[in-house]
């Protein structure tokens, strides 16, 4: 039998020319050059996962932008940007479903804000009366509070704008929540805060277990011939649920202990005291600095104070990290894509703050007299920068086997 020579190039089965470029299992895109292909968002896995901190910085940037305007069109645009990014880049993890909950919470906030304004009156002077509610007469000592009375279009619109601003802030936080894995975020904490982080992670796995326990015990009541609903059911299963939760925490504590949780290195007392002093002092500085920044008076010393406080606190935490012998397994890296995502959020924030200088009227449409809000071109375009993550962040894989264990 004659063997074919090993070194002969394999002929192509269809008789065509040998393939020159490596075959990629992607959809062929004739217009795409190689540089474009390299820049295109890859499929997300552990290696290229976006740093969870980047998502939070991006979302906080959008939130800062939202806090600078009451223009409903701009706020709507911000919500749309956040929503689009979430839709494009969220996984099928449990926390990813929280976005819808935050949107509902936002709508609820708007409703409450308007309701309060209608029921309790508002200091906004207005001329367009919508309707007259009977005013509840209040005694003299309650002067300044009004229940019922005249309701003007101006006051309702003002409440709407104000509520929409709060709702947008909430929705931005919801977006970060849906996009960033909370456990991985906690893993990025400095070593000195690690033990706090573990406690939070364990608590987070604890809550779903508790909910599952309650559901299981409620259905088990059926087996005793009792109703599964009602307050009586909850009261009766309360104790067993808590008992089960306690037992589980003890089991996890035992497991963590047996696996080396809390092993610590010896640190000289001087270092320990320095750590405490630095951390406490730094945090005090941060508090005082932020207070000064937020109140109008302390303009001059606020930023330096905040800065010094931050540096001291970080030094304290780093020194505190010496006690811990821990190392970290495959921490998320803050790579170029993470920088771009965080940067896009920051850019939106900075441009909006700047826009507050050049177009204050467009950002805060007038309520008295009532005008139709206009969409200012440049602020709107700057908000669209926030869409960048929807194109550069790694794409989560299509829902992999999410078979629930029966």
């Amino acid at each position, binding site marked *: 039998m004659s063997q074919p020579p090993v070194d002969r190039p394999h002929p192509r089965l269809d008789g065509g020319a040998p393939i020159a470029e490596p075959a990629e299992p992607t959809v062929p895109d004739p217009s795409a050059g190689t540089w474009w292909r390299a820049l295109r968002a890859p499929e997300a*896995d*552990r290696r290229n996962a976006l740093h969870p901190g980047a998502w939070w910085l991006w979302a906080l940037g959008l939130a800062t932008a939202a806090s600078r305007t009451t223009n409903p069109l701009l706020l709507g645009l911000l919500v749309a940007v956040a929503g689009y990014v979430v839709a494009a880049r969220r996984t099928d*993890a449990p926390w990813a479903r929280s976005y819808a909950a935050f949107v509902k919470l936002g709508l609820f906030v708007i409703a409450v804000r308007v309701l309060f304004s209608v029921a309790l009156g508002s200091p906004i002077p207005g001329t367009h009366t919508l309707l007259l509610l009977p005013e509840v007469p209040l005694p003299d000592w309650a002067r300044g509070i009004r229940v019922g009375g005249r309701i003007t279009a101006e006051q309702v619109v003002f409440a709407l704008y104000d509520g929409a601003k709060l709702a947008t802030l909430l929705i931005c936080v919801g977006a970060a929540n849906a996009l960033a894995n909370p*456990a991985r975020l906690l893993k990025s904490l400095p070593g000195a805060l690690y033990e706090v982080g*573990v406690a939070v*992670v*364990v608590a987070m*796995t604890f809550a779903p277990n508790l909910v599952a326990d309650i559901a*299981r*015990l409620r*259905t*088990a*009541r*059926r*087996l*005793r*011939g*009792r*109703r*599964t609903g009602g307050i009586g059911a909850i009261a*009766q*299963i309360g*104790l*067993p649920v808590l*008992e*089960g939760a306690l037992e*589980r925490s003890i*089991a*996890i*504590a*035992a*497991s*963590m*202990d*047996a*696996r*080396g*949780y*809390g*092993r610590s290195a010896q640190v000289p007392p001087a270092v320990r005291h320095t750590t405490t002093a630095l951390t406490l002092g730094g945090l005090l500085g941060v508090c005082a600095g932020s207070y000064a920044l937020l109140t109008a008076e302390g303009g001059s010393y606020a930023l330096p104070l905040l800065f010094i406080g931050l540096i001291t606190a970080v030094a304290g935490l780093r020194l505190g990290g010496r006690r811990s*012998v*821990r*190392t*970290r*397994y*495959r921490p998320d890296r803050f790579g170029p894509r993470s920088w771009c995502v965080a940067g896009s959020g920051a850019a939106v924030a900075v441009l909006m703050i700047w826009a507050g200088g050049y177009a204050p009227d467009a950002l805060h449409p007038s309520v008295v007299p009532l005008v139709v809000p206009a969409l200012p071109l440049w602020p709107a375009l700057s908000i669209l920068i926030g869409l960048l993550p929807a194109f550069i962040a790694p794409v989560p894989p299509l829902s*992999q*086997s*999410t*078979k*629930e*264990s*029966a």
Partner: protein
Amino acid sequence: MIRFEKVSVTYADAGRPTLQHIDLTVPEGELVLLVGESGVGKSTLLGTVCGLVPHFTGGTLRGRVTVDGRDTRTHKPRELADLVGTVGQDPLAHFVTDTVEDELAYGMESLGIAPDVMRRRVEETLDLLGLAELRDRPIATLSGGQQQRVAIGSVLTTHPKVLVLDEPTSALDPAAAEEVLAVLQRLVHDLGTTVLMAEHRLERVVQYADQVLVLPAPGEAPLMGAPAEMMTRSPVYPPVVGLGRLAGWSPLPLSVRDARRRAASLRERLADRSAPLSGSAERKPDASRGQRDPVATLSKLTVRRGRAETLRGIDLAFSPGETVALMGRNGAGKSTLLGTLVGMVAPASGTVVVGGLTPRRAAPAELIRQVGLVPQEPRDLLYADTVAAECAAADADADAAPGSCRALVSELLPGVADETHPRDLSEGQRLALALAIVLTGRPPLLLLDEPTRGLDYAAKARLATILKGLAADGHAVVLATHDVELAADLADRVLIMADGEIVADGPTAEVVVSSPAFAPQVTKVLAPQHWLTVSEVERALAQRPQDSL
């Protein structure tokens, strides 16, 4: 590797020591199996090795336990973490993180191992345990066998010299148990790890053990020796050993393979006796089934969870007086099927009728007089803080005469005081209490979900006797179980499920004999003859050949 010197352990609220006179050495690189009835202190003994007893549990440890020269009195569990890996019975209680890869790295992170070493070891462990495909999966979505392998892997990454396992295969189906045991074999043979393991399901593990450590009774000195020798004296033993004891083989066979080699003469002696298929007293003839009105019928039943169909096109009927074993791998839909019969799970299509009621719509108080379910965790049924209060509540729930539940408890569980707290009962006693509560309503259909999880052979035998009595009284009994020996002992009919469908349904002897995974040990030893249990063989040998003609 592990030295116990005059060890005794006394817990704070106990009158007498839980463990006493432990004086032995576990050599390096051996797989030592710890054997004993429930409550003899197996878990306590395992706890002393990793230091959780007494550092975590409290109590007083006298004597000295040293592991590779480290004294557990002076070393806390966390300081033994690089030396001893501990895995408990419930892997879910062991996990600290949420994905497989992080879980494998957790122990190494605590020990401060360098990142590149960690990465390499995680990859090695993923390969060693066959977990590479699951590396990014959330742990909660894994099957029981996969979770147990992750739990073992998570302690292996720190390269411990000693592995301590408390019932690693109790909650697993036969195939998943094989997976885990194969891994343990590999560790002992390839890496020289010392393994100390407690397990109730001896039929699965005894042939792998290098030595067996028997705890004969609470507070008694332990015996340690070669498995075959220890099995002659052990109070608990697997069916294959029971068969060997019956046939008088010496040394005792430990595996089906050993026993088959010896069994030629036994097969010959049994050849002319009545095979159980053709009319043993214990198994009711098939004819009785289907003639009486069924207590429950399911037709074209489909159940969905999310979009996945967990049950598909199930057509079944259960008749009074029959005992049915429901088998199949974890996640095959056994618990869901039982859930539909008590209305805990809503069908997507098809009908379920139990005693003329539709379980999902019936009032719970009415339903418990038609069907009763003892759940996988019997504790879910217990709310009160004494046995007496629990019984009174059960009487009220089922509208039964006062005292009926207590009478059942006394029958099933002799010698339990009224004021005992249900939490203080052993696993088997708690199961019996839950069973009594469920039986207070006198339901014609009784369902049990994994009743033998955590039960030793004695408790299992008691449960089998109780269930046989109930079936004889005309109750239909359906048990979902992984325990092939229990199914062989009890069931008239076996249903095998896979992926939400019934793939086999027939008399026990026919179904299990033809299946390598679900055949009990006696069947495997005596194939091609159709014997299921040691007691059947014993009875057949006691009769004279001509009686059976």
